[in-house]
C-alpha cells in the first residue's frame, strides 16, 4: 500500500513542473487582462510564450515565492505602492540599467523615465524594478437621466446630498476616496497630495467630510458593482474604475457621464520577480509591453491611459481608435485639461500610511 502512495506522490511531483518555460504574468484578470493579452501578448513576436494568471493584488504570494525560492511568476502587474515595497524588499529584481539600455525609446528618443516625467510623474524606487503600464482612475459617474434638471459636475456636488439627493456608491477601502474628500473640502486637486503629506490634521478633514455623506452611502467591493448600482437606480452617482464605465459606454450603449474633476489617477506597473525562471524572455516582453505603441494599442480595448506621454499622440493621430470606429479620447482619463483637475495619487505616501488609513477607514465604515 505504501508503495502505491509513494508512486502517487511521485506522480504528482513530476506532474507539477509541466507548466514552466512560458513567461507567466500575474495580473488582475477580467477585461483588463484581456486587453493586456490583445495589446501586449498578441502583438509580441512570440504570442504563445506569454501566459496570464489572475491574482487579487498584494505582494503576499510574491513574497512567499521569493522567500521559498520557488518562483513561478516571472512578471507581476502591480499597483505603484506594491512596486515600491517589492523593489525595496528585493522581491522584484533591480533592473534599472536594463530598463535604461533596452527600453523602447519614444519618437524623440525619450527614455521610459523621461517619458513618464513628461506625464507629470515623479521618480520613486518602483521605477528601478518595473516598467510603466497604464493610468487608471477612480472617477465619479452618473446616469444623466437621474438628474432631469441641473447635473452634478464637481466633487463638491458628489458630497452635497442636499443639492443632489440620493445615495452614493463608494468602495470599501480608502485609496481614492480620501483624496476626493479633500477636493470636496476645497483643496485644489493638484495640491491634494502635498496637503495630505504636509498638513497636520488633513486626514481628520477628509474623514469629517466623509461623515457628511455617511448615511447616504452604498458600499461596493467588486468592480462591476458600481455600474449595476447606478443602472438599477439604487444610487444616483458612484465612484468606479473609469475602464468599467468606458466599457459600458462603448460596448453596451450606455450613456453614463463622468465627473472628471477630482478623479484620482493611479499608476500600474509590470515588475520582474527576483529569481524569475524565465528572466531574459520576461525582460524582453517587458520592454515590448512598455513601448509607446503597445501602450497606445491597449487603449483600443480598455479606456485606460498610457503612462508614457508619447503614447498619447499615437492615439490622437490614430482616431477613431476605439472599437467600431469610435473616438476613444473622450473616454481617456489623462488628457491635458482633465489632468489639470485631477489628483495623481502619491504611492510613496500611501505605502507609508496605507495600512493605518485602511484600518481607520474600516473603523469608520463600521461605526
Amino acid at each position, binding site marked *: 500500500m505504501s508503495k502505491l502512495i509513494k508512486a502517487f506522490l511521485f506522480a504528482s511531483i513530476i506532474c507539477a513542473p509541466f507548466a514552466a518555460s512560458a513567461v507567466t504574468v500575474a495580473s488582475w484578470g477580467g477585461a483588463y487582462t484581456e486587453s493586456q493579452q490583445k495589446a501586449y501578448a498578441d502583438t509580441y513576436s512570440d504570442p504563445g510564450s506569454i501566459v496570464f494568471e489572475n491574482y487579487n493584488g498584494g505582494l*503576499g504570494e510574491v513574497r512567499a515565492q521569493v522567500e521559498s525560492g520557488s518562483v513561478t511568476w516571472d512578471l507581476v502587474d502591480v499597483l505603484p505602492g506594491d512596486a515600491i*515595497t517589492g523593489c*525595496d524588499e*528585493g522581491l522584484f529584481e533591480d533592473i534599472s540599467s536594463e530598463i535604461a539600455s533596452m527600453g523602447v525609446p519614444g519618437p524623440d528618443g525619450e527614455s521610459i523615465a523621461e517619458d513618464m516625467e513628461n506625464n507629470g510623474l515623479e521618480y520613486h524606487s518602483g521605477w528601478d524594478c518595473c516598467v510603466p503600464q497604464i493610468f487608471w482612475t477612480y472617477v465619479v459617474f452618473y446616469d444623466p437621466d437621474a438628474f432631469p434638471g441641473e447635473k452634478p459636475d464637481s466633487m463638491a456636488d458628489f458630497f452635497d446630498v442636499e443639492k443632489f439627493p440620493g445615495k452614493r456608491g463608494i468602495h470599501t477601502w480608502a485609496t481614492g476616496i480620501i483624496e476626493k474628500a479633500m477636493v470636496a473640502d476645497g483643496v485644489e486637486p493638484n495640491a491634494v497630495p502635498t496637503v495630505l503629506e504636509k498638513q497636520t490634521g488633513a486626514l481628520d478633514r477628509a*474623514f469629517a467630510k466623509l461623515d457628511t455623506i455617511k448615511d447616504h452611502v452604498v458600499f461596493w467591493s467588486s468592480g462591476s458593482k458600481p455600474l449595476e448600482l447606478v443602472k438599477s437606480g439604487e444610487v444616483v452617482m458612484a465612484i468606479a474604475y473609469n475602464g468599467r464605465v468606458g466599457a459600458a459606454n462603448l460596448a453596451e450603449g450606455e450613456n453614463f457621464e463622468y465627473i472628471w474633476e477630482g478623479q484620482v489617477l493611479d499608476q500600474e506597473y509590470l515588475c520582474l520577480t527576483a529569481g524569475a525562471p524565465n528572466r531574459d524572455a520576461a525582460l524582453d516582453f517587458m520592454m515590448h509591453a512598455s513601448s509607446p505603441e503597445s501602450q497606445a494599442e491597449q487603449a483600443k480595448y480598455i479606456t485606460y491611459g498610457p503612462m508614457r506621454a508619447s503614447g498619447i499622440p499615437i492615439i490622437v493621430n490614430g482616431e477613431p481608435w476605439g472599437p467600431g470606429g469610435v473616438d476613444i479620447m473622450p473616454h481617456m482619463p489623462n488628457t491635458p485639461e482633465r489632468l489639470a483637475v485631477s489628483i495623481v495619487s502619491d504611492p510613496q505616501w500611501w505605502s507609508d500610511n496605507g495600512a*493605518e488609513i485602511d484600518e481607520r477607514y474600516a473603523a469608520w465604515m463600521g461605526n
Partner: protein
Amino acid sequence: MLLRSVDDSQINTVFPNTFEEYKKWDKEKDELPPEEVYKALFQELAYGEKVQVGRALTRMNYSKSGWKSLIKKTSRAIKKVVKKDEFPDSYKEFFIETNEKWADPTYWYAMGQMVNNQTSIYYWNAIDRTFDQELNVVQQEEDRRVYVQTWLKTLKVSIYVTLFCLILGFPVAHLLANLPLRYSNLLMIFVLLPFWTSLLVRTTAWIVMLQQKGVINGVLVWLGILSDDGRIAMVYNETGTLIAMTQILLPFMILPLYSVMRVIPKSHMRAAQNLGAKPVMAFWRVYLPQTIPGMSAGGLLVFVLAIGYFITPELVGGKDGKLIGSWIAYHLKTTLNWGLTAALGAILLGFMLIFYWLYNKIVGIDNIKLG
C-alpha cells in the same frame, strides 16, 4: 505560525549597533537620543544590504507610519555623503538637516518597540493596544481601533447565526426524527443536498436570490407587496451575511439534533401526558432536556464554523462583511504584516481550542456523525 507572531529578529540583524546604542539612551534626561545612536544608524544604513534594509523598513512602518520614506530619503542623502567622502561632524545635525522628522522623538519612541528579538506587540495590536514610549501597553489611537470592533462583530454574527440555526433547525430535526423512516429519508434530502453542495455555489445562489433585482425582490414586486422603487436591500449588508450563513450552516445543526432526537423514545412524551402534564409542559420538562446534547453539539459546531468564516461574509457582506477572517487574509496578502496575521490567527485558534475542549466535554469528539 506561532513563532511568526512573536518573532522580531529580522530588524535586529539589520540594525544591531543602533539598537545597542539605543538601549543606553536615557529618555528622562535627553529629549533626543545621543549622537552615538545617530552615528550607528548612519553606518548601518550606509553599508547595510539594500534588500535587508528594505525588509526592515516594512517592519518599522508597522510601528509608526512614515518610517519607510523617512529612512529611504535619509539613505539617499547618506549614500551621497559616502560617495563624496565628506562625513559630517555631527551625525545628529546631519540627520535633522536631511529631514526634520529626526528631531521628532515619537519616531524614536516607536523604535523602542523593536529593540528586542521577541515581541508581544502583534498580540496587543490585534486587540487595539500598542506600546507607549516606556513600552507600557496603552490603547491604540481612537480612530485606528478596529480589531476589537471586528472581534465583537464576528462574535455577534456567530451568535446570531447559531441562534437562527437552532430556531430553524429544531422543529425540522424534530419532524424528521418522528416521521416514519421512508418519509424522513426522503425529506432528509432537503437537508443533505445543501450540505453536499459547494459553499461558493450556495453563496452565489444567495446573491442571485437577494440582490436588488433578484428573485425575492422580483417576487415581492410582482405580488404587489413592494413597489418597484421600494426594493429592499437584502444583500451586501449584515442581513445578507446572516441569511446566507444561516442557510449554509443549518445542516450542521440539524444533523446532530436529528441523531439525538431519533433515539428519544416517543413513549416518554406520552407517559408524561398520561401523568397529567399539558403538552407544552411535557415538552418543556421531558423532551427538551433530552435534546440538550444535540443542541449543544449542533450549536458548538455551527458557532465554531461561523466564527472562522470569511468567504461568505466577504462576498455577500458588503461593508459589514469584514470579519476577523478577512483581516487575516488582508494582512497575509496585502500589507505583508505576517506578525499580525499570525497573532490574529493564534487568538482565533485559542478561542477554537476552548470551544473544542467544551465540545469534547459535552458530547465527546468521536460522536460526530455525518449524514
